[in-house]
């Protein structure tokens, strides 16, 4: 339950500056909030509403449309197992079943220690590598029950800490450039067009 940190507010302002209209920064800012807390906290949405001059209901209306945003704490590692057609054809449900057994939770649930959440998800664009999963949006291909167990062991033991950041962190590299040129006036654009 927290507002964005000062550092993230600074990042947020950079992001806002890359769009011609403030509201366009909404989804990126929600990602910032999720990166900070592992989920999108209510206070963070109020804070984002302030930053973007929106009503909190507008922030939540957009946020809740998108599956990646969680509004309650989830596991440190969200394991998304694809069960869509290409994966179903080669055993995704058995893999999901194995995962549920291994972690003692059902799809959508979180382990008691707060380490793992598993979800049965839609196509993750790794169809030729089926069955596939993502852990915090990092891919694992052609997953077998054995390789799944090994993954869990590695995550538990901290072996993958560098490779798999906690839930909420997506890209480890950010765009650092500003959109200084595009934010010039429309008149100048027309001159460019006349070239």
């Amino acid at each position, binding site marked *: 339950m927290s507002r964005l940190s000062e550092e993230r507010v600074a990042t947020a302002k950079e992001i806002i500056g890359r769009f011609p209209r403030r509201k366009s920064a909404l989804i990126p800012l929600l990602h910032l909030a999720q990166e900070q807390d592992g989920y999108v906290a*209510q206070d963070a949405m109020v804070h984002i509403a302030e930053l973007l001059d*929106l*009503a*909190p*209901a*507008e*922030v*939540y209306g957009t946020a809740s*449309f998108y599956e990646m945003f969680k509004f309650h704490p989830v596991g440190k590692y969200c394991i998304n197992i694809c069960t869509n057609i290409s994966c179903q054809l080669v055993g995704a449900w058995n893999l999901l079943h194995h995962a549920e057994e291994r972690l003692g939770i059902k799809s959508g649930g979180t382990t008691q220690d707060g380490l793992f959440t598993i979800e049965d998800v839609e196509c993750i664009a790794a169809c030729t590598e089926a069955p596939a999963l993502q852990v915090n949006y990092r891919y694992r291909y052609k997953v077998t029950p054995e390789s799944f167990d090994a993954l869990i062991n590695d995550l538990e033991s901290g072996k993958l800490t560098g490779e798999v950041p906690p839930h909420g962190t997506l890209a480890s590299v950010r765009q650092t450039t500003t959109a200084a040129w595009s934010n010039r006036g429309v008149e100048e654009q027309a001159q460019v067009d006349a070239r």
Partner: protein
Amino acid sequence: MTDTAAPKTTVSLTVDGRSVEATPGDLLITACERSGSFVPHFCYHPRMSPVGMCRQCIVEVEGPRGKSLVVSCMTPVADGQVVSTTSEPAKRAQEGVLELLLANHPLDCPVCDKGGECPLQDQAFSHGPGESRYVEEKRHYEKPIPISDLVFLDRERCILCDRCTRFAGEVAGDPLISFTSRGNNTQVMTFPDEPFSSYFSGNTVQICPVGALTSSAYRFKARPWDLEQVESTCTTCSVGCRTVVQSSRDELVRYQGVDVESVNWGWLCDRGRFNFESVNSRNRVHSPLMRKDGTLVETTWSTALDAAGRILRTVLNDKGPDAVSIIGGARGTNEDAFAWAQLADSLGVTARDAQLGDGLPAEVFALPQATIAEACASPTVILLAPDLKEELPVLYLRLRDAAEKRTTRIIEVSPRATGLSRYAWKSVRHDPGDQPRVVSELLSDRDVVDQLSRGNVTVVMGRGNLAESPEFTLLATGAVLAAVPTARVLPVVRRGNVRGAVTAGMTPQRPDADTNAILSSIAAGKVECLVLVGADPLSDVPDADLVRRAFASVKHVIAVDTFVTESVRHAEVVLPASAYGEKVGTTTNCEGRVSDVAQKITTAGTARPDWMIAAELALELGVDLGISSYPELRDTMTSSIAAFAPAADAKAVRGEGVLMAQSAPIRITATPRSAAPRLTHQFRLHVSRVMYDRAVATNESPSLAPLAREAAVHMNSGDAQRLGVRDGASVRLSSNGSAVVLPLAIDDAVARGVVSVPFNQHGSDIRQLIRHDVAVTDVVVEVI
């Protein structure tokens, strides 16, 4: 189109075999309906942008590329279109959509408020497949949940048409409800802990095409087939929204907005919509009252009229007509005010005023006038007015719409930000008393001069600050009229029928006879009898000290009212008046539009219309006003007051109503003056109304009364920091020898150096600091 060809103004198309003319840009659905073919629909609403969500209005169109199914609410008309609303494919699609809409609908019509007037129910019968094949589990949600103090939401009934959410964002500018989640789980919701506290929330209930949104005031009160209704005009404020007044078993149960182009477009504010409850209040005065041993006790009409007559006769005989004054008239009809003015004329009483020291000089009605529609069509609107969102809420909607459509630029000059500031092209803060100077400065700004040259300019002027003389706004308006001679004025007085009452003669007939002067004369012992006609000076007159002194020394008070208000408590005789919905008449809105108010229910107890009381009191005093029936009164009024002549035809005042006749406009003659500069350690006081206060119609409506807030001193965060005072701390405001203690609310809407306090709220009464003869109110703020 070549340069020489004129743009085509109509297109012809064929709907179900009939040819129809339409304007380019019209939507197919309107052309179909005009042609007589009803197209079933849910999400489409003529006053909101189409979204094409429900898909119910699918029709078949034959165009150059063959036949296709289109949604008629988003397809523009085109020349030569051949449209079928009932072809097999169209019917199949309409039935299909209806079956799908009903798939998850709970079909709990027997316990639903909407049952009997439900578009979903009606169209399921007229355009549905007859039966549902859906055997799966339906969606389940907790039902119903309150999303505000006034509105309940049942998500199971909701068909996700986007009407309420569109209204909230697009029309009201309060996007406090939104679609949340996605797909089959989509639902309308507020943000957690942030209710849908829009001043316009009731409109969502009215436009909901199912029973998903219900109002706390109407829930389970009646069934549509038990309702009787009549069209009327709301008199809560001076916008004069057109309404339908509905009753069940002779009790008012609901008001609904009626769409008239010139005024409210179908919308109502929640205060106007839900204050019908006050008419049903048990606290109404049901029979005449007379003071006996210090308390008011019930009596008969003949005894009460006899007593009132005796008091008036005695004072008139002993002290002459200048010892009698009448305050009120703005809460009644034009005819009520006219009858009282006739009575006053016949008695020679010249001190009479429909305003309570909180309005504008009557001369503003003689300035060149603009209508609401003209104001909203003006490229420039200059706002020298109170917060319209608080005081004339539907006018706020209209101006907001004009600003959002980028057809109007608003220039606002006020001591604090208002609901319209966000939509204003320029919003300028100023110290109370400084408005004329700030406006003059603006008028020489290059951008502003450019803007003013782009077409009509309308000044929306009103009493923005009750702690400041209205003269400043008059002067500021004069400055605009001098700079832009073609500019016109829309005077926004607050109380429902001020304009009609003033026109009917309830206005001072000599200098120094307005409400403040009347109260001063009473305090000075020069006026002995005060007649109150639906007026409560003790609650409403800004100068609390003056009104308190007047009521302490007044000899006789005769009151005509619907409730025993603070002021009515001082009366010797109380004559019970019929309330809204209990009498017929006409009313005049701020733009001078006369429209009818209708009777729907039997009057409470033995209450009578104000005009009838005037006529009977006249007889008691040996005067025959020549009024024995309402039609007679109406004829007399429209024939004797030129301004009301256009309202002579009973048909003219229905629907849109009719504009009063205007006499030749006058020019503002007030001499420029400016307030003394504010001392640096002082704040200049701004006092204005908010929508929910302790006004009797709000206070006596159980749904609305809890919405009135505690009074607080609103101060800019910079000033608060300078004073070292925190939000919520108690502060003492002192001025003119009086002081009040109130909590502080940090509020950056308020200009630096200004403190703003809402009027007539719970808590200490800010009016104690206001003096009617002091141009501006400077206060010292101390932290306790």
